Structures are given as structure tokens and as C-alpha cells.
């Protein structure tokens, strides 16, 4: 009884000789594209266009306030001869590699600790995520003061514990400045790993662990042979996300060290900013930013297809 009137209620497609606006909009592809158009146009105008315009700029000698002229690959040749640029490469890779390992190991440890039963777990989780949600520039200001050359509380504690005899210049020494940005990035990013991996851990069925325990697997074996294999997709996605945004990090380093001392902590984004914005050489700056692309593209393409497959 309920079927017959239901099919009669929509005669439009059958009788559709006459064009009706509503009939057209109800067609799946018309409706879909009507919904998509504003977003697609926006992304074309403000992501795709700037991207290709950036490539165009990188082939120009273009001071900020005047017209540019085409110089071919001259900007890239200049960068290849620029010692600072090669240092930027090294810095970025060290920064990305070390922080990723630290965040992955630390985040996994955090997730394993949090995956136990205890009271106040939700509260603990909320607190642990704070570094990740507070605006980075603001929390980095706190770290600047923690690492201040004269009034660093880290130095104060180390001095009073008798571990050192004079305070470190955390942000003034090339090696220590790199250590500092790595520590702060790890501090900020580890909760992202920790909480995401925790969600992954919670999807693992307890039966798997029980079965492994019955087979006589030790805790360590259970971790390597049950936890890690099940977590593999989550680990891959979280790590690739984090690599993309660490590799292209700007604000943490800009606020904490400005790329100094003597370029020791400059990464692609801060160096591109210095040349393109502070120095007003848009073409060369765009070239520095584009130098990120090969490494970034590999990760982005892998991740895009991995996400699509999932």
C-alpha cells in the first residue's frame, strides 16, 4: 500500500519533457555541482592560482613594489650557490627528522600510559592536549622566557642542582638553539601523536591480547606482534601529517629564534619569509618556498592516495 503512492509522488523524471527548474536541480549531478561550485571556485582562486602564480614568480626577478621580468631559472641557480640555502636544507631535515622520531616515540609512550584504566582519565587527556590547542605563537612566548639567556628557569634549576656551573645560552648558541626549537616542537606536537594513537589503541580488541597472552607472548612480544601491526595505518597517517607540517613549520621558529643565531635554525619557511617579505625579493623568496615542493610532494601524494584508499 505504501509503495504505489510513493512512486506516483515523483512523476517529474518520467514526465520530464518540459524543462522544470526543480526537476533539473533534483538530478544528482546537477545538485552535486551546484553544491560544489562555491567551494571549488574559492579553492581554485586562493589555493590553485597562488600555487601556479608562485611558480611564475619564482622565474622572475621581482622586487616587491615594481614590475618583474623573466629570468628563467636564475633564482634557483642563485640558491644553489647560496651557502645559507644549503644550511637551510640541512636544518629543515634535521629538525623534521629528530622531532618526528621524538614525537612518535614519546607519543606512543603517552598513548600506552593513557590506555590503562584509572580515575580522571578524561581530565588527564584534556590537560595533555593543551599544548596542541593553545595558539603556538603564544605558548612559544612562554618558552622564550623559559629559555631566556639571563633569567632562564631551566638554567636556574640546573645551576641549583649542581649540574652546571654557568647558565646555557639556549637561543644564542647554534647547537643549543637547534636543540631548543626541537624541544619546543616536540612539546607542542607530542600530544597530537599521543591522543590520536590512544584512539587507535582503543580500537584494538582485547581478545587479540588475550589470545596472545594464552599463547605465552610476553608484554614486549604483544606490543611488537599485536599492537604495532594493528596500529600501522594510524601510525603512517599521523606521521605523514606531522612530517608535512613540521617540514613547513614557520611560526614556532620565527617567534623563538627568527632563524638565528647566524642562520643556525633557519628552515625553508623562515628563510623564504626573510628573503621574500623582509628583503622584498618576491621571486627569490618564491623560489625558496618552492624548494620545499619535491620532498613535500612525495609525502603529499603518498598520503593523498593512502587516504583515498582507506
Amino acid at each position: 500500500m505504501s509503495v504505489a503512492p510513493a512512486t506516483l509522488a515523483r512523476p517529474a523524471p518520467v514526465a520530464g519533457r518540459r524543462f522544470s527548474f526543480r526537476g533539473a536541480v533534483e538530478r544528482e549531478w546537477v545538485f552535486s555541482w551546484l553544491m560544489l561550485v562555491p567551494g571549488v571556485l574559492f579553492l581554485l582562486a586562493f589555493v590553485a592560482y597562488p600555487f601556479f602564480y608562485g611558480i611564475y614568480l619564482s622565474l622572475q626577478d621581482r622586487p616587491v613594489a615594481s614590475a618583474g621580468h623573466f629570468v628563467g631559472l636564475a633564482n634557483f641557480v642563485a640558491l644553489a650557490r647560496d651557502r645559507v640555502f644549503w644550511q637551510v636544507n640541512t636544518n629543515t631535515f634535521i629538525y623534521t627528522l629528530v622531532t618526528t622520531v621524538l614525537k612518535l616515540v614519546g607519543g606512543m609512550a603517552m598513548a600506552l600510559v593513557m590506555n590503562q584504566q584509572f580515575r580522571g582519565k578524561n581530565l588527564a587527556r584534556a590537560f595533555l592536549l593543551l599544548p596542541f590547542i593553545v595558539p603556538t605563537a603564544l605558548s612559544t612566548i612562554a618558552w622564550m622566557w623559559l629559555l631566556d639567556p639571563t633569567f632562564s628557569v631551566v638554567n636556574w634549576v640546573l645551576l641549583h642542582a649542581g649540574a652546571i656551573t654557568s647558565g646555557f645560552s639556549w637561543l644564542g648558541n647554534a647547537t643549543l638553539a637547534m636543540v631548543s626549537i626541537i624541544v619546543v616542537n616536540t612539546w607542542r606536537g607530542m600530544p597530537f601523536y599521543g591522543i590520536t594513537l590512544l584512539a587507535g589503541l582503543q580500537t584494538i580488541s582485547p581478545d587479540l591480547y588475550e589470545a596472545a597472552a594464552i599463547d605465552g607472548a610476553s608484554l614486549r612480544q604483544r606490543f611488537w606482534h599485536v599492537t604495532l601491526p594493528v596500529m600501522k595505518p594510524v601510525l603512517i597517517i599521523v606521521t605523514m601529517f606531522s612530517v608535512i607540517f613540521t617540514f613547513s613549520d614557520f611560526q614556532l621558529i620565527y617567534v623563538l629564534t627568527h632563524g638565528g643565531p647566524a642562520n643556525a635554525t633557519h628552515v625553508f619557511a623562515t628563510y623564504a619569509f626573510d628573503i621574500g617579505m623582509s628583503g622584498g625579493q618576491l621571486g627569490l623568496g618564491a623560489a625558496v618556498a618552492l624548494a620545499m615542493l619535491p620532498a613535500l610532494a612525495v609525502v603529499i601524494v603518498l598520503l593523498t592516495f593512502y587516504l583515498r584508499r582507506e
Partner: protein
Amino acid sequence: MVGGRGLGTRTLRLYLPLAFFVVAMLFPFYWMLITSIKPNRELYNARIMPLIVHQPTLKHYVDLLSQTNFLTWTYNTMLVAVVTTAVSLVLGTMMAYPLARMRFPGAAVVAIGVAATYLVPQPLLFIPMSDIINRLELGNTLKAVMLTYPTLLIPFSAWLLMGYFKSVPRELEEAARIDGASRLQAMLRVVLPLCTPGLLSAGIFSFTLAQNEFLYALIFLAKSDVRTVPIGAITELIRGDVFYWGQLMAAALLGSVPVAIIYSFFVEHYVAGLTAGSVKT
């Protein structure tokens, strides 16, 4: 598991590492707080024990609110975050809905495009973007950041929402259409209400991302009265070599409060949004 040994293992496996993580993650915020209420004579005296406040004062807060544009910066930050979140949520929903639930030519290309734009980091685009904003004569206006933040937030919201939209059974929508609802009505009255948690997650996440944005605001907002909190603090409370530490910490703390409050109310949704992209539910 009974008695001292159980407690011993639990201390070793749970309480000690948990305490370590909590202290490590929260110490910088503690430091923000106590620095902001220390008088200068305590701040700049290396002989006084720095871990606690001896004579708390609200002077830095008063100075921050009366001598700087902090309230304007806060207003700007909130206005931009709310507008961009709303725009991104609407456009993100409009993109995610057909991508998640409809079959049409071009769907695969658009889906890959959304994923790719989501993953393109800002530093790849900011130099050409600065030139575009200049040509549009939008420098030093909040419109500049309102136009550019959604480049991050739309793909993010769309990506997050696609997962939620896919989870609503097609039969519900079909039933509504059989009852005479148009596609738009079925979406607005049937599917979207069922996806409220997803919309909340996307909204909260976008809001925190908008508050966190730094690079575009730094480039486009060079005048004090259009600045956002992070940019105002970095550029006006640090002048050359002079750091107004007390005011800086007060600004950092107050600037974090709106995000922290919203986050504390919706922490579950935030975590759901965080994990939706990487963990299949």
C-alpha cells in the same frame, strides 16, 4: 595483583609516567601564569627563587589592557575566527555532502583536489598570496585574513565532514525524498541533523586553527588596530631588544583563554575531530 607489588607496578607503569607527561605538558602554562603576576623586581632578579610568586600583582594585566591595543586585538582575533569558521563550515559542508553521498562525473578529481589542498602548507603559498592581496588592495584589512584563512579551513572541514556524511544510511534520505522532500531538504532536515557531532568537531577545530593562524596575519596586518593577539604580542610587546615579559605572559595567557574555554566544553568533539582523519571509527 594484590597488595604492595600491584601498587608498585602500577606506580611504575601508570602514575610515574603519567605525572611526567602532565608536568612536562603543563609546566610552560604554569610559567606563563606565575610570570604574569610577578612584579618586575621579582622577574628581573636572578637571586630570588623563581618557581613561586612571592608578591603577586595584577599590574601587568592592567598595563596590558590600558596601555596597549590588546582588547582590539582580541576583538579582531575573535571576529576573524568566527567569520572564517562559519564560512568554512558552510562551504566545507557543501563540498563534503555530494562528495560523500552522490555519484557524478568529476567526483574523484574534486575529492583528490580537496585532499591535496588540505595538505598544501601555507608557507608554499604565502609569497604569491601576499602579492595577490596587495593587488586586491586588501593589505591591513581583516578582509585579507578572512579571505585567506578559509584556504586551510575549507578543505579541512570538508575532509572531516565527508566521514560523517558517509555514515548516514542512504535509506533515510531516500525515505525523505519519497515523502516529497527535495535533495536540499533531505540534506538540511535529515542528514545534517544526524551529523551534528561532525559539524561541532569541524567547527571547533576550525575555530582553534583560526586562532592559531600566524603567517598570513603577520604578513597582511601591519597596523596596530587590525592586528590579532599573537601578532600584536610579538610585534608590540617586544620592541627591539626590550621584552615586556610580564605583559607578554599576560597577553599569552589571556589570548589562550577563549580557545581553552571552548575546548574544555567540547573536548570530546575536538578529540573526535582530531582522530577522525586518521582512525577509522
